[in-house]
């Protein structure tokens, strides 16, 4: 009795922690229970079915999974070198006076709400992409790649990828910067003392030391891109059907849910959207867990 009276605060805050754990379990349970009719109907084949026709009651997730993979993958491909460059600049080269303001500016980019990026994407970026960027890419050697077809409308997988890239730059840059700061000074200074230029020291010593941490930054950035909803929904074109062409309107897991869940009438329609939500949840859970585990291993390894 006396123990409880002295330790009530510990139990109270512990209850809050249990509430958080329970909420996480509830999220998983609800996604599972809500999507059960879909799994009953098609089993795992729901994941590679390509049809999506609410009127005929045919549902399959593949076009959306492919759309998400293509846009997030391209976004990561663009954002990774950019973020790494920013991180290197801010840890190694930027003058001390500029460092904090620059970090602040990059972080402000992360503070802009997704829907504002989407608005800008619809009315500003998409026309620019359609008139200038897509013709340019199509005319360059890159245009020979089979992933780029004829330049189409402004709302395409390509436009969505660009917006996603902009949106994940701050998170990858700030995680990479933290990783680069953990590199021991002695190692870098040793390389410099041996006559390496700053770039050589960076490439051969710092980057190889930081590699696992940078990998986890990329994984966490990919997880962020995967779940990004509004900017994607507003620029991807929302066309049903499987496509591998970046210059074509497409769809993503988040976009189809955002577009259809509020108006879904039949039970199987709602449950199929929830099934896509479950797949999205699991993908992002795996990526986040992987990223965090690597970070934790890097930290304990360094200690």
């Amino acid at each position: 009795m006396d123990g409880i009276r002295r330790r009530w605060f510990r139990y109270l805050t512990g209850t809050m922690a249990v509430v958080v754990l329970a909420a996480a379990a509830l999220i998983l349970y609800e996604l599972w229970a809500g999507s059960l009719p879909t799994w009953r109907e098609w089993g795992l084949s729901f994941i590679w079915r390509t049809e999506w026709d609410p009127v005929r009651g045919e549902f399959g997730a593949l076009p959306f999974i492919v759309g998400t993979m293509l846009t997030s993958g391209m976004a990561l491909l663009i954002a990774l070198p950019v973020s790494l460059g920013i991180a290197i600049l801010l840890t190694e080269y930027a003058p001390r006076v500029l460092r904090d303001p620059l970090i602040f500016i990059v972080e402000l980019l992360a503070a802009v709400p997704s829907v504002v990026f989407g608005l800008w994407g619809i009315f500003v970026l998409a026309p620019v992409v359609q008139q200038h960027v897509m013709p340019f890419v199509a005319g360059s050697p890159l245009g020979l790649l089979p992933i780029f077809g004829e330049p189409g409308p402004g709302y395409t997988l390509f436009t969505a990828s660009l917006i996603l890239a902009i949106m994940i730059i701050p998170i990858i840059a700030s995680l990479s910067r933290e990783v680069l700061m953990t590199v021991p000074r002695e190692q870098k200074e040793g390389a410099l003392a041996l006559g390496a230029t700053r770039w050589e020291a960076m490439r051969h010593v710092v980057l190889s030391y930081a590699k696992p941490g940078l990998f986890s930054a990329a994984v966490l950035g990919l997880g962020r891109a995967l779940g990004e909803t509004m900017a994607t929904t507003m620029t991807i074109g929302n066309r049903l059907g499987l496509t591998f062409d970046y210059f074509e309107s497409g769809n993503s897991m988040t976009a189809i849910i955002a577009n259809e869940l509020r108006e879904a009438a039949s039970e199987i329609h709602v449950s199929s959207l929830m099934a896509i939500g479950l797949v999205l949840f699991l993908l992002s859970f795996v990526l986040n867990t992987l990223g965090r585990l690597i970070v934790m291993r890097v930290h304990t390894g360094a200690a």
Partner: protein
Amino acid sequence: MRTGGSSLSLRLRLRLLRDHVLVGLCVVALACAIVPLVWVLWEVVAVGAAHISWEFLTSLPNPPTVGGGGWANAIVGSGVVVGIALAIGIPVGVGTGIFMSEYGNNPLGRATRFLCEVMAGLPSIVAGIVAYGLIVITMGHFSALSGGIALSALFVPIVAITTQEALQMVPRHQREASLALGVAEAPTTLRVVLPAAMGNVLTGMMIATARVAGETAPLLFTAFGSRYWMEGIDQPTATIPVNIYTYAISPFEHWHTQAWVGALVLLSIVLFLNVAARTLWARRARFMAGA
């Protein structure tokens, strides 16, 4: 072994040149982040500021063909939905943070910390789907309450993590001094540790508030939207972010303009919270460094 000094210096010059080129590339990378930011801010301010009016802030929406009208119901609605998220999220988030920091050196504490980090990276739309399934379907209609609960799921992990980290920065000996004086656990945490960390705890809350205030995806099928004043927290309500989305994808020129004005209002709130949080934090950091 003297190879020609000139060829050696040529190689060195090439190496140094490469060094400079790569610094240049890093600067270009930074520009890739700054240009879109400035571009977005510029568009929002240019279009938004040109059309913002007292009417926009204080009156209800008009039908799209009429023109004029405002987003007053959405501004109030956003306040209510975010308020619900804070009312749930602050006690749970701060409580969890206190537990993880002060009493969390056990499997429950570590599991909670890990889960908070994973949940902080969760797609925000998932929170909306779950609130839709659990609350909207059960109640039979959309509601401000379900939107607030969905947002609280995004608010809690951020606040829990920042609270834990803020409390961890309070020196150990302050706790020990308090406990040694015979002060019990609860007052030690509430009157010694928490006040010392308050600045950083508040900073975390402000950043988390800014984050959820701008969230749209979880509200699409929870708070939904409305053209009228909210009739109660169990009823659907308009919010600024969802309005920006629905107005932007509408076919009406007049609504597009209003979406930009709404974006200006939202961005002002979100950036104000962020800048205020950072300056608060910077001031405290300087204070602590000076002390």
